[in-house]
């Protein structure tokens, strides 16, 4: 095969695949992060509406899901419209979410007793339409359930965000199991930004894009959500103190 033809052929094949995936009609509905390096890595130049996205924490964050919730809140804050937040545990502290730019008037909480309730509520929220995003805090996300959520999201163009959090850190290996979600993220905390004085600076995250449909995995070091839910890329600091410790702790 000559290399001259290949771009056109590949283009054609891409079109056919896109047609098969059925997403052709609702293209370009994405929510950009506003960070060029991140948006480049995502097909369409941002986080797709009408799709399911999974977020989990790294290290101790697998249990508390604090950074993952904040990441999801930042995304929801930048979207427009109401947000349905489904959960079973009531430890979310909303003032922090409000500090990420998500106004309390925009969020309707739906508290269930069981995981299945959260899944059912999320599906109902996604298929309702009219919402900007549906956030769900889940332990297990089986393939079948994730596919139902993904289909419901595709139908209405609402963004589904699943914050995965487990009871124990060892259970987090579940995050490797395949699901039908479009992207999968892991947010781990990094030592915060250096300040010239004593104190805690802006929080920083190591954001791993572990899986994305029609895209490649990537890692970003980011400054955490600001007051409007925006992230920012941080320059790599050469003199950063030993990163091996957190890398090691994340792998455990």
């Amino acid at each position, binding site marked *: 095969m000559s290399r001259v033809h290949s771009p056109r052929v590949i283009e054609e094949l891409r079109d056919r695949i896109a047609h098969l995936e059925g997403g052709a009609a609702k293209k370009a509905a994405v929510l950009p992060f506003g960070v060029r390096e991140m948006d480049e890595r995502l097909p369409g130049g941002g986080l797709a509406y009408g799709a399911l996205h999974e977020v989990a924490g790294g*290290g*101790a*964050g697998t249990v*508390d*899901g*604090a*950074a*993952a*919730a*904040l*990441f999801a*809140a930042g995304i929801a804050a930048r979207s*427009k*419209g*109401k947000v*349905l937040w489904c959960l079973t545990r*009531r*430890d*979310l*502290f*909303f*003032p*922090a*979410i*409000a*500090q990420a730019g998500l*106004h*309390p*008037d925009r*969020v*309707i*909480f*739906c*508290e*269930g007793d069981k995981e299945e*309730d959260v899944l*059912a*509520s999320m599906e*109902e*929220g996604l298929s*309702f339409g*009219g*919402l900007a995003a549906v956030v769900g805090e889940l332990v297990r996300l089986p393939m079948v359930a994730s596919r139902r959520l993904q289909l419901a999201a595709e139908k209405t163009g609402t963004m589904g965000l699943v914050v995965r959090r487990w009871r124990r850190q060892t259970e987090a290996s579940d995050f490797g199991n395949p699901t039908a979600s479009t992207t999968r993220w892991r*947010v781990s*905390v*990094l*030592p*915060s930004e250096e300040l010239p004085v*004593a*104190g*805690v*600076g802006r*929080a*920083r995250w190591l954001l791993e894009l572990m899986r994305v449909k029609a895209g490649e995995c990537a890692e970003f070091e980011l400054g*955490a959500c600001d007051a409007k839910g925006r992230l920012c890329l941080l320059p790599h600091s050469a003199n950063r103190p030993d990163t091996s*410790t*957190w890398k090691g*702790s994340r792998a455990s």
Partner: protein
Amino acid sequence: MPVDHPLVVISKSGSKRWISAVDTAARKLGLKLGMPASKAQAIVANLTMIDADPSADAAALERLALWALRQYSPVVAVDGTDGIVMDTEGADHLQGGEALLISGLVNGLRGRGLTARAAVADTWGAAHAITRVTSAETTVVPVGGVAKAVTALPIHCLRLPPDTIHGLRVMGIETVGELSAMPRAPVTLRYGPEVGRRLDQLFGRMAEPIEPLRTPELVEAAKHFQEPIGAAETIAKYVRRLVGELTAKLETRGLGVRRSDLVIHRVDNIRQCIRAGLAKPVRDPARLSKLLCDRIEKIDPGFGIERLVLVAIMAEPLEERQAASSLIEEPIVDVTPLVDILGNRGQRLYRVTPVASDVPERSVMRIGPTADETGATWAAKWPRPSRLLANPERIDVTALLPDQPPAVFTWRGKRRRVRRADGPERIFGEWWLRPREHAAVRDYFVVEDEAGERYWVYRAGDGVDADTGSHLWFLHGVFG
């Protein structure tokens, strides 16, 4: 009128006047039901007497039953002249269980200035008897415990005519247990079949359906079936048809449904109910039928359903409004349909709103999901953790007093060295609301360990004065 002033209600029949109700103060003075009015006046000087008004009493009782119908259960009826009976089957879980349901009911009535006694039992007869005899405000008879609960009760609570009761007493029968131990045939021969029937109803050997209270204002649509139906699709079809009928009737009156009951009558004389509540008055057939059809799987058709009744228990005026159409503005999405669907599934829906309180756990208040938007948000500039532990957890800390952040702390068995810290952010107890917090102080610190994990820890107390707190350290939240 002073509360301790004795008060009695006087009933009249011809020239005979007797006491038909007494209050606590009058009872203490020795006045009893059935006592002649003149005798009572002789016992108590300047006794306040009110003429009885049975028709007004009945009307008030019906109003009360209607209120209970809206609040508590789809099947409510007036029981005699002094009570309300309701079928709590399938309705108690909405109030958190039987005990909570009746205590809530009694408290709700007390808030309206009424004293009430309530009991939950397997049968109407048992609940009737227990409420009228026991002095406890609320009684819950466990399932299958009727026989044990009623044997010692006196026979006058059996809903029998006074003559029969008197006759039985003459025979020396005082309690339900004694009566039920008697041979049935002679009793029936002498007092008629009523005694046996009431006993059977009391013990649940004979069904006693409650005919729910209905008033002319209630809009309802009903469907009788020639042949009993049972398939889910058939039920759904007829539910949709009933909803259509109901909404058409509501439209003529300009009403919208706030709460509707689907009552399912089975061929074996068992009644089931599905209740659907709505956040706003609604007349849209599609929405209403979705809410009802959503829970068809809860229906147990048994041998078949012979009758479906759909009632708009609570209806409110609904005006058709023209949809605001604009080319520039974004349409405001009405989320009430979603709220209704999820709420009727038993999910707890709420929004949160700020409360002017510096104490973190009190700074958030839940409000209804469709409450008005306030636009208010938290004013705090200081970072707040995205997860707040419901109960702050004790941590072992090495820290300098009075105002240094911890250098090392141990939480959940893991020792962490603090790299960076911010604080203290001092939060005072709300002494203007809670006198016990007069001197209480918490000093909050944001601490970050070597791995970059950030926590919100506090010391109870200001580090100097022992009155301000125990000076123990707690971890209260995890930052994202």
